[in-house]
C-alpha cells in the first residue's frame, strides 16, 4: 500500500497492442457492470417480490383492524399507530436538537479541539450498533429514569440514534449556502441569528428536510433499539399516553415471522409490505425534495 499512484507508468508502456488493451478494458468494464447489477437487481427483485406477495393481504380491514386469534388473523392497526407515534416522538426530540447542533457546527463553532471532539462524537454515534442503543435506552430511560417500556423511552432512544444522520445532512445543507449571502445580511445590519433564521435556514430548507426524513426513516424501520424499550409482543389496544407501551411494525414483523408458530404467510408478507412501503415512501419523498431543490437552485 506504500506505492505512489503515479509510478506504474513504465508498466503501461509494456502493454503490447492497443487491441489487447481494449479487450482487457472491455472485460473489466463488463465485470464492473456485473457487480453493479449484483447490487441493484436484487433490490428491484425484493421490492417487486414483496409487492406481489404482500398486496393480496392488504385490505381495509387488515390496515385498520386489530389483531385477532393470537395475531393469526385480523389487522395490524395498533402496530401502524405505534410506529407512527414512535416516529413522531423521535422527530420531536431529534429534529430541534439535530438542527441546533448542525447550526452550531456550521455557523458558530471555530475549528478547535472541542469542535473536533464533537465531530468524533457524532461519527461514533453513527457507528454504534443499534442493539447497543437498545441496551442503553433500557438502562437509562426504562430502568434508571423509570419511564418503563414506553413510547417516551423508545422515542428518546431512537432520537439519539437518529441524531448523527440529521446533524451531518443538515450541516452539509447549511454549508452549501454561499458565504456571500451571510455577508450581505450582516452588512445590512442583521444579527447573526437573524441571518441564520431569515437567510441561511430558508435557503437550506430542502437539504434539511431531506436529512430529517432520512433520519426518521431509519428510526421507523429499526427493531433492535425498541426491543427492550417500547415494544409490546401483543397489545391489542391503542396507546393512550407517551408512557404506554405499544406495538410497532418492525417488532411485530419480527414476532410474527419468528415467534408465533402457524402464522399465515399472507399476514407476514402483508405486514412486511406495509413496513417497507412506509419506509420507502419516506425515502422517495426525501429523494424527490432533494432533486427538485437541486434543479431550482440558482447559486
Amino acid at each position: 500500500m506504500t506505492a505512489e499512484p503515479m509510478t506504474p507508468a513504465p508498466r503501461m508502456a509494456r502493454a503490447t497492442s492497443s487491441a489487447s488493451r481494449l479487450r482487457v478494458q472491455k472485460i473489466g468494464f463488463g465485470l464492473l457492470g456485473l457487480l453493479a447489477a449484483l447490487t441493484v437487481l436484487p433490490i428491484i427483485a425484493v421490492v417487486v417480490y414483496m409487492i406481489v406477495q404482500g398486496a393480496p393481504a392488504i385490505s381495509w380491514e387488515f390496515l385498520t383492524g386489530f389483531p385477532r386469534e393470537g395475531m393469526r388473523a385480523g389487522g395490524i392497526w395498533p402496530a401502524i399507530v405505534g410506529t407512527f407515534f414512535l416516529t413522531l416522538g423521535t422527530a420531536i426530540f431529534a429534529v430541534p436538537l439535530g438542527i441546533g447542533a448542525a447550526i452550531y457546527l456550521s455557523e458558530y463553532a471555530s475549528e478547535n479541539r472541542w469542535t473536533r471532539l464533537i465531530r468524533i462524537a457524532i461519527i461514533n454515534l453513527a457507528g454504534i450498533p443499534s442493539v447497543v442503543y437498545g441496551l442503553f435506552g433500557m438502562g437509562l430511560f426504562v430502568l434508571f429514569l423509570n419511564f418503563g417500556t414506553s413510547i417516551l423511552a423508545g422515542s428518546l432512544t431512537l432520537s439519539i440514534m437518529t441524531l448523527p444522520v440529521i446533524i451531518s445532512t443538515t450541516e452539509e445543507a447549511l454549508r452549501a449556502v454561499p458565504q456571500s449571502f451571510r455577508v450581505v445580511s450582516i452588512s445590512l445590519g442583521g444579527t447573526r441569528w437573524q441571518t441564520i433564521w431569515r437567510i441561511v435556514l430558508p435557503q437550506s430548507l430542502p437539504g434539511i428536510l431531506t436529512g430529517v426524513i432520512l433520519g426518521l426513516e431509519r428510526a421507523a424501520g429499526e427493531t433492535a433499539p425498541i426491543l427492550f424499550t417500547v415494544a409490546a409482543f401483543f397489545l391489542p389496544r391503542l396507546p393512550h399516553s407517551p408512557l404506554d407501551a405499544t406495538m410497532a411494525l418492525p417488532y411485530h414483523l419480527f414476532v410474527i415471522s419468528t415467534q408465533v408458530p402457524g402464522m399465515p404467510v399472507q399476514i407476514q408478507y402483508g405486514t412486511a409490505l406495509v413496513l417497507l412501503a412506509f419506509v420507502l415512501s419516506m425515502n422517495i419523498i426525501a429523494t424527490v425534495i432533494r432533486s427538485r431543490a437541486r434543479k431550482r437552485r440558482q447559486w
Partner: protein
Amino acid sequence: MRNKATSLSWIEFLITRLVKASGYSAIVFVGLIFFFLMGEGLPALAETSLSSLLSTRWYPIEGYYGLLPLIGGSLVVTLGATLVAVPVGIGTAVFISEIAPRWLREILKPLVEVLGGFPSVVLGFLGVLVLSPFLREFLGLPTGLTALAGSLLLGGIAIPTVVSVAEDALDAVPRSYRDAALALGATQWQTIWRVTLPAARSGVLTAVMLGVGRAIGETMAVMMVTGNAPVLRLGLEALFMPTRTMTATIAAEMGEVANGSEHYHVLFLIGIALFLISLAINVTASALVFRQHKRSERILS
C-alpha cells in the same frame, strides 16, 4: 467575542447558548452511553471469572458465560459479509462513478440508497422465508439457517455503506489525474485501475472499514437467519452451520433476563465490546479521511 455578546439582545444570547448546548450534546450522549454501559457491564468482570468468560460454552441458564462462541460467530458472519460486500460494493462504486453514463448513474444512486433504507427486519424476514430454504435445497444442508445465510444478508446490508463512501472517495480524485493518465495513452481501464483507485485508496479503505462496522453491529437480520446456536466452530464448515453473533445474543436474551443479575451484566459486557469495536473502527476511519485531506492539500499547494 465578549464585547459583541453584550451588545446582542438577550434572545440572541439565549439562542447562541441553546445552539451551543445542542452542539455539545453529541459529546454528552457518547459519554452517557459509554458510562452507562460501563456501569452495568463491568460488574460482570467481578461476578464471573475471566477464565469462565473466555471458555467455549455459552449456556446462561446453568451459569456458563463463555464468550468465545459469540465472538467466533460474529467473526465468521462478518468475514463472510465482508467477502460479499467489499468486491461488489467497490465494483459498484467504480461503475457508478467512472463508467456509467449520466442517465444510468441517476438511476443507480437512488436505488442503492433504497437498499440502505431497507429495514433489516424485512431483510431478515425474507431471509427466513426465501433465502434459507433456497440455501438448504441448493446446498443440501440440514437447515438453511446458517452463518452463510447471515453473511449473504449482511453483505447486502453493508453494500450501500461501502458504495456511498467509496464513491465519494472516487469523486474526490481530481479530474486532472485522470486527464493526465489518458493523455499519456492509458486506456480508461488502466486509468481507473492504476491511477484513480490508488489515488482514492484511503477513502476506499474507509469504505471497507465502515462496511465491516455496519456488518458487526447489525442485529435483527442476522439473529433471524443464523439459527441461534451459540457453539464455537472454526474452519470452513462453520459457514454452513447455525451460529449466533454477539449482537443477536443481546437481542435474544436481554428481554428475559432479571435486572441486575449476572446474566444481565454479561450481556452489557458484550455491549461494551461492541461499543469499543465500533469506536475503534470509526476513529480509525475518520483519521484516515483526515490524513487524506492533509495529503491532497500538501500535493496541491
